[in-house]
C-alpha cells in the first residue's frame, strides 16, 4: 500500500496569500493513500527539508508530493531530501501551485480548488513512480566556443588556462568580433585594438586552443558531456599551412574595388583579402563572389605572386567532426542599418551613418585614418547630430527593448568628435540618458560639461536634405515640445542592437531557446544567467541581449567557470528518465511486435534491433531495444508504438492516465 506524504509550502506569502494552504493540506490528508499531510512557511528552507526527511522516516512514507513552486526550481532539492529520508529520489513529485496557481489567480475558492486538484493529480502520479538509478556518462573534457568576439575570446582563454582543450569556431576570416571595429572604448577611452589584439594573439598561440576561422557549425548531436559536432570549414582558397601572411597576393590583386565589410562599406578591399591588418589568423581568403578567376576563369595573379605556393583555387569546404563535452555560445549581435528608417531617408543620404561607421571614421586605422570626414565629399562636419534610440524602445518598429550600449557610445562619439574637431558642435537627441555602471554617469557628464555636447531631450521625427545640409527635425520635450530644426553636416544614428544573422538557425541546431527578437534565452533570468535550458550549453556576451564589453567579458568568465566545474568530474550523472521497450524473461515474450515504427521517429538513433535467438542460434524474432546511453527521454517512440510496448520513466502510461483521471474525477 502506498503511503504518500503531502507537503504544502506557503513560500512566505507567495502561495499563502492566494491559496488557503492549511485547507489544501486538510483536504489532501483525506486522499486515498495519503498517510501524512502538512503545510509549512518555507518548505525549501533547512527546517522545511528536515520536516520532509523526518516525516518520511516517522510515517514510513513510500513517496512524497511537495506542493510548492515549479519543478524547474526545486525538484532537485526535494529529490535530495527524499533520498536523505531513505527513499529513492525519484519517489518525489512537485505539485506546481505557485507559478501555475497562486501567482496567476486571485484569492478564492476556485483557486483553492485548483491547488487541491493539482495536488491530487500528483498524489496519483507519485503512487506509480518507479525507483530509478541515475545513469552515469563519461565527460569529454574539450569545450567548443562558437564565435570569436571578445566574449568568445575570454571564454576560450579562461577554459584553456584551466587546463582544458578548446575548439573555437569563428564565422569570419578573423576573430575579434565587433570590438575589433571600435575606435576607443567607454568609459576609459582606451584604444579598442590595443587591448583586444594581444588577447587575439593569445588565442592563436595557446596550445590548448584549436582555432577554426571562416567556419560554421554544420550540426550538433548528443548531450551534455558528449556532444558530436560537425564544423564546416569554408574554403578560403588558401592553404593555411603554407601561407606566411606576407600580403603579396592582397597587394597585387587587380580586383580591388569590392566593398569592405570591416569598414562597413566605407572603403574597398581586394577580392583576396585579410579583413584588417591585425587579423588573427593573418591569412587571406578569396571572396569567390568577387574574384575575377572564379567569375571569368582568368587572372590567377595571386597564385603567381605567392612565393610559398599557398593559393588553392580547387579547395573545397571541409567538414570536420569533433567530440566536445560543453559548448559556449558567443555569437554576439548586430546593429540595424540606416536603411531600416524611412523617416531618416531609408539609407539614401550618404552622410547619415550608423554608430559602427562612426567608430571606423574615428579609428586611426579606419578609412579616414581617424579624421572625422563625411562620406559624401570628405568634408569635416562642423555640426553633427547624434540620434540615440534609433529604433530602440520603439514598439512601432518592433523593438521595444533598450539597446543599452547606445547612450554610452553616443556620449563617447560626442567626446571623440570634440577631440578631433575642436570648433565643431555636437547635438544629441535622446529619450533618457541611461548611464548606470561604474564610472558611466561621470563619462556622460564629461561629454556634456567638458566637451560641450548639447543634449536635447526628444525624438527626431524626420531628416531630409536641403542645400547640401541635413535638416534634422525633432522636438525638445523639455521646452514644451517645441520643434527644433538643426542644419547638420552629418548625422549618426545610434541604431538598435539586434540579434546576429543566423542566430535562429544556430539555436535550432543546438536546441536552445531564444526570445521573439532571436536573442538566446538564459535558463533563469536571475540565477542561471549564463546557462541555457539545454544542459552543457552556455551563453556569454551580446548573443543574449545587447551588452557592453565589461558585461560580455564577465559573462564569458562565468561560462568558463561553469565549464571548468563540469570538467572537474570524469563522470556525470544523468537523469534516468528514458524510454524502454517491454522485456520479459525470456525476451521472446516481449509484447514488442518488431514493427520498428519507433526507429525513424527517434531523433537520437537510440533504437536498435535486438535479435532473439533459440539455443541453436537461429533467429526467432527481432525486438526494438533502446540504447540507454543515447536516449534523451523525449518519449516520441512511446506515442507511436502500436502495441504499447514502449514506456518512459517519469511519464509512464500508468502515471499519465492516473494523472488525467485524478484531475477530473474529483
Amino acid at each position: 500500500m502506498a503511503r504518500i506524504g503531502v507537503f504544502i509550502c506557503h513560500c512566505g506569502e507567495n502561495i499563502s496569500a492566494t491559496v488557503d494552504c492549511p485547507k489544501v493540506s486538510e483536504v489532501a490528508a483525506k486522499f486515498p493513500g495519503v498517510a501524512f499531510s502538512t503545510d509549512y512557511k518555507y518548505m525549501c528552507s533547512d527546517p522545511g527539508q528536515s520536516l520532509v526527511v523526518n516525516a518520511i522516516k516517522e510515517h514510513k512514507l513510500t513517496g512524497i508530493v511537495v506542493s510548492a513552486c515549479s519543478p524547474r526550481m526545486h525538484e532537485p532539492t526535494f529529490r535530495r531530501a527524499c533520498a536523505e529520508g531513505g527513499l529513492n529520489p525519484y519517489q518525489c513529485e512537485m505539485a506546481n501551485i505557485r507559478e501555475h496557481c497562486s501567482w496567476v489567480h486571485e484569492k478564492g475558492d476556485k483557486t483553492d480548488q485548483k491547488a487541491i486538484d493539482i495536488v491530487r493529480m500528483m498524489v496519483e502520479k507519485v503512487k506509480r513512480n518507479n525507483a530509478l538509478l541515475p545513469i552515469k556518462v563519461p565527460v569529454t573534457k574539450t569545450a567548443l566556443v562558437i564565435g570569436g568576439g571578445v566574449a568568445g575570446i575570454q571564454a576560450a582563454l579562461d577554459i584553456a588556462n584551466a587546463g582544458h582543450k578548446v575548439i573555437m569556431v569563428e564565422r569570419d576570416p578573423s576573430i575579434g568580433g565587433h570590438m575589433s571595429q571600435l575606435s576607443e572604448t567607454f568609459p576609459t577611452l582606451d584604444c579598442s585594438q590595443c587591448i583586444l589584439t594581444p588577447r587575439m594573439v593569445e588565442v592563436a598561440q595557446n596550445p590548448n586552443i584549436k582555432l577554426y576561422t571562416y567556419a560554421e557549425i554544420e550540426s550538433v548531436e548528443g548531450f551534455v558531456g558528449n556532444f558530436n559536432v560537425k564544423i564546416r570549414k569554408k574554403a578560403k582558397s588558401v592553404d593555411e599551412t603554407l601561407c606566411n601572411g606576407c600580403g603579396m597576393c592582397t597587394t597585387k590583386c587587380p580586383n580591388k574595388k569590392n566593398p569592405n565589410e570591416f569598414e562597413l562599406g566605407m572603403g574597398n578591399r581586394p577580392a583576396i583579402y585579410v579583413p584588417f591588418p591585425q587579423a588573427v589568423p593573418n591569412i587571406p581568403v578569396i571572396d569567390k563572389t568577387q574574384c575575377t578567376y572564379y567569375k571569368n576563369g582568368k587572372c590567377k595573379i595571386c597564385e603567381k605572386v605567392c612565393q610559398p605556393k599557398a593559393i588553392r583555387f580547387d579547395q573545397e569546404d571541409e567538414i570536420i567532426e569533433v567530440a566536445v563535452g560543453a559548448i559556449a555560445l558567443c555569437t554576439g549581435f548586430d546593429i540595424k542599418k540606416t536603411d531600416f528608417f524611412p523617416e531618416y531617408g531609408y539609407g539614401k543620404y550618404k552622410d547619415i551613418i550608423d554608430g559602427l561607421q562612426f567608430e571606423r571614421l574615428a579609428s586611426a586605422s579606419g578609412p579616414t585614418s581617424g579624421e572625422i570626414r563625411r562620406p559624401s565629399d570628405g568634408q569635416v562636419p562642423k555640426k553633427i547630430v547624434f540620434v540615440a534610440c534609433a529604433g530602440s524602445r520603439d514598439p512601432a518598429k518592433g523593438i521595444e527593448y533598450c539597446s543599452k550600449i547606445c547612450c554610452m557610445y553616443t556620449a563617447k562619439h560626442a567626446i571623440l568628435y570634440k577631440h578631433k574637431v575642436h570648433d565643431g558642435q555636437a547635438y544629441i537627441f535622446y529619450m533618457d540618458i541611461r548611464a548606470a555602471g561604474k564610472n558611466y554617469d561621470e563619462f556622460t557628464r564629461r561629454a556634456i560639461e567638458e566637451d560641450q555636447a548639447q543634449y536635447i531631450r526628444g525624438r527626431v521625427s524626420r531628416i531630409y536634405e536641403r542645400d547640401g545640409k541635413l535638416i534634422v527635425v525633432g522636438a525638445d520635450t523639455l521646452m514644451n515640445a517645441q520643434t527644433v530644426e538643426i542644419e547638420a553636416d552629418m548625422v549618426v544614428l545610434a541604431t538598435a542592437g539586434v540579434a546576429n544573422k543566423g542566430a535562429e538557425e544556430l539555436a535550432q541546431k543546438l536546441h536552445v531557446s531564444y526570445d521573439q527578437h532571436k536573442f538566446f534565452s538564459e535558463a533563469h533570468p536571475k540565477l542561471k544567467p549564463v546557462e541555457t535550458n539545454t544542459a552543457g550549453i552556455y551563453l556569454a556576451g551580446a548573443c543574449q541581449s545587447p551588452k557592453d564589453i565589461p558585461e560580455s567579458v564577465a559573462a564569458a568568465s562565468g561560462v568558463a567557470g561553469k565549464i571548468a566545474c563540469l570538467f572537474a568530474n570524469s563522470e556525470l550523472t544523468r537523469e534516468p528518465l528514458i524510454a524502454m521497450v517491454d522485456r520479459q524473461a525470456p525476451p521472446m515474450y516481449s509484447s514488442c511486435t518488431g514493427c520498428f515504427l519507433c526507429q525513424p521517429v527517434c531523433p537520437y538513433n537510440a533504437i536498435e534491433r535486438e535479435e532473439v535467438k533459440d539455443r541453436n542460434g537461429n533467429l526467432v524474432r527481432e525486438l526494438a531495444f533502446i540504447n540507454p546511453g543515447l536516449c534523451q527521454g523525449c518519449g516520441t517512440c512511446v506515442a507511436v508504438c502500436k502495441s504499447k510496448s514502449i514506456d518512459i520513466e517519469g511519464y509512464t502510461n500508468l502515471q499519465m492516465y492516473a494523472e488525467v483521471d485524478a484531475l477530473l474525477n474529483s
Partner: protein
Amino acid sequence: MSEFEPKIVAFVCNWCTYAGADLTGTSRIKYATNVRIVRFPCTGRIDYMLLTKAFASGADGIIVSGCHPNDCHYTSGNFHARRRWMVFKKLCDFMGIDTRRIVFSWVSAAEGVKWADIVNTTVEEVRKLGPYESYHKLSTQDILA
C-alpha cells in the same frame, strides 16, 4: 444557476509551454482558473488516446501545446505530434468527437503572455460550446448500464 465553468486540461511539453506557463506566473499575469496542466517531456510523447480519456473523465476542452516548429528541445517531437494530431483529428471528425474543443498551439518558454491568452480564449470558446454532456454521458452510461 451559477455560470457554467468549463474544465480544461492542458497537455504541454516540459521545455517550451510548461516553462512559458511558469513565466506567466513569474510575470504575475492573471488568467482563468479553469485549466489543469499535465506535463510531458515533449508533445511527441502525447498519446492522443489520453485526449479521449480526458473527455471521458469530464473535460470540456483540451489544450495541446509545445515548442514552435523547429524549436523542439528534441529536434522533431513537435512535428510528430502535429502529424499524429492531423490524423487523429480526422478520426475524431469521423467519429463525431467535437474537435472545436481541442486547441493545438505552440507556446515558447518566452511567451508567458501568449499562454494566458490561449487559456482565456479557450475557456471562453468552450464556455460558449457548453458542457460536453454528450460525451460524458456516453462514457458513463455505457459502463454503468
